[in-house]
């Protein structure tokens, strides 16, 4: 294992701060920006609030979207955001504004997260200068559960988060925060859940670092291994914990792990663990096809994949939008099995697993 399995990336990190309506995004942002370590931060917001963050490089954008010909909503270009990010670079280079080391984009409560990610990954100039560092989603302990019930955007925002911040725990009823956390954990088990009152949190605990993202996936793997040993791992069609032979003559195993079974359409996470290296060609064909056919059901895909190289391939996708996969120079720990985490609703988990294994077997036989 190396200290930095990704290698250096000199681009400016962009943190996306999203969250449910009234869940305390601006309060959190204001407190964060008051921290000495956040001094060289540019902030892009949709609405100027009453919270005092004027001493920071603050810019306001009117949400302006461009719907592409495909009609794919999650691939809507946020022209406002792309323009503003480009403008920040131009003004910095012209000496009009001081250099900045980080950008925080605060979205409206109803913003779809995928178009923002799509914009960051699509615009060539933006892509050359910025990298997505992580997504922070605020959920308030008082209204969060109700918003998850009533607003589809809420589940999406929880699903895309790299960090989930539960706010207003000081005024929520007994048990509310714990119940909400349990529900959020089912939707997005690999995002740490942090309880924050009045925005009091250290920036380091909140802003995603690549190593921590990797660590989270590795920790999930370790936890699943432990659950497997305890006989708690679900296995569709097989006994718990056994490998699954699909008759391809190779005995290739794929295990399906879920926190519990879901019969409803509520968003939840499940993982697929593969015992042997994946055929990358088959995987790319399979996932692109899956996202085309079931893109509205699959909210998030994330994983570390063994595609036969020295290190794993890091995969990260939000709905139809998939980051360019990154080859890491080393595995985060001794476990080198591929693991794919899928956050989805209304989809047959066993069918997803069976399909992936069948595609992989066919590619290897060909």
């Amino acid at each position, binding site marked *: 294992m190396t200290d930095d399995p990704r290698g250096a990336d000199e681009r400016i990190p962009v943190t996306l701060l999203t969250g449910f309506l009234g869940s305390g995004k601006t309060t959190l942002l204001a407190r964060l920006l008051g921290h000495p370590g956040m001094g060289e931060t540019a902030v892009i917001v949709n609405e100027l609030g009453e919270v005092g963050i004027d001493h920071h490089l603050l810019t306001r954008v009117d949400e302006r979207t461009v719907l*592409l010909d*495909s009609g*794919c909503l*999650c*691939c809507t270009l946020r022209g406002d955001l792309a323009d503003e990010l480009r403008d920040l670079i131009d003004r910095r280079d012209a000496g009009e504004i001081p250099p900045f080391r980080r950008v925080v984009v605060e979205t409206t409560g109803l913003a779809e997260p995928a178009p923002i990610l*799509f914009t960051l*990954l*699509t615009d*060539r100039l933006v892509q050359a200068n910025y990298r997505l560092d992580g997504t922070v989603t605020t959920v308030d302990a008082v209204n969060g559960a109700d918003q998850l019930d009533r607003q589809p955007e809420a589940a999406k925002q929880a699903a895309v988060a790299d960090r989930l911040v539960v706010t207003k725990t000081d005024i929520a009823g007994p048990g509310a925060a714990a119940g909400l956390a349990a529900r959020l954990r089912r939707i997005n088990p690999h995002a740490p859940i942090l309880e924050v009152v009045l925005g009091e949190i250290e920036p380091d605990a909140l802003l995603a670092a690549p190593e921590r993202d990797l660590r989270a996936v590795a920790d999930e793997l370790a936890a699943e291994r432990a659950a497997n040993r305890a006989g708690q791992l679900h296995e569709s069609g097989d006994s718990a914990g056994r490998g699954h032979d*699909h*008759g*391809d*003559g190779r005995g290739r195993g794929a295990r399906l792990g879920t926190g519990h079974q879901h019969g409803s359409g509520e968003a939840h996470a499940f993982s697929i663990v593969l015992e042997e290296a994946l055929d990358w*060609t*088959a*995987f*790319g*064909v*399979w*996932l*692109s*096809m*899956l*996202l*085309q*056919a*079931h*893109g509205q059901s699959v909210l998030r895909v994330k994983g570390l994949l063994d595609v036969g190289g020295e290190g794993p391939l890091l995969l990260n996708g939000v709905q*139809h*939008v*998939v*980051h*360019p*996969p990154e080859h890491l120079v080393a595995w985060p720990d001794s476990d080198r099995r591929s693991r794919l985490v899928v956050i989805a609703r209304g*989809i*047959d988990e066993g*069918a*997803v697993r*069976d*399909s992936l294994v*069948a*595609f992989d*077997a*066919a*590619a*290897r*036989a*060909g």
Partner: protein
Amino acid sequence: MCVLCGQLLSSHWAEVGGGTRDRIARVKFLNTVLAHWGLRLDDWGNRVYVLRNAKGVGKPVPDLGRLWVIAEQLNDGPLDPLDPALAQRLRAGAA
């Protein structure tokens, strides 16, 4: 990057960094899958794919992202990778 909007991007995420050998392997594998719906993909000069249906109607395809959109058009319906019959067909071919 986006399966629906892949033509707008420099490369589809699943095709980044691949050479001619990877492209040939991809076309071969895609044809294994597409045959389930009577579709066939050809590669013209390593630059553009052409997808045809059983009636011989063909359309150019810039990359893997747009492939599935155009395949739905030529198939006159969705192509579901979770179709159990497809998985059975792929497993039978691999045996």
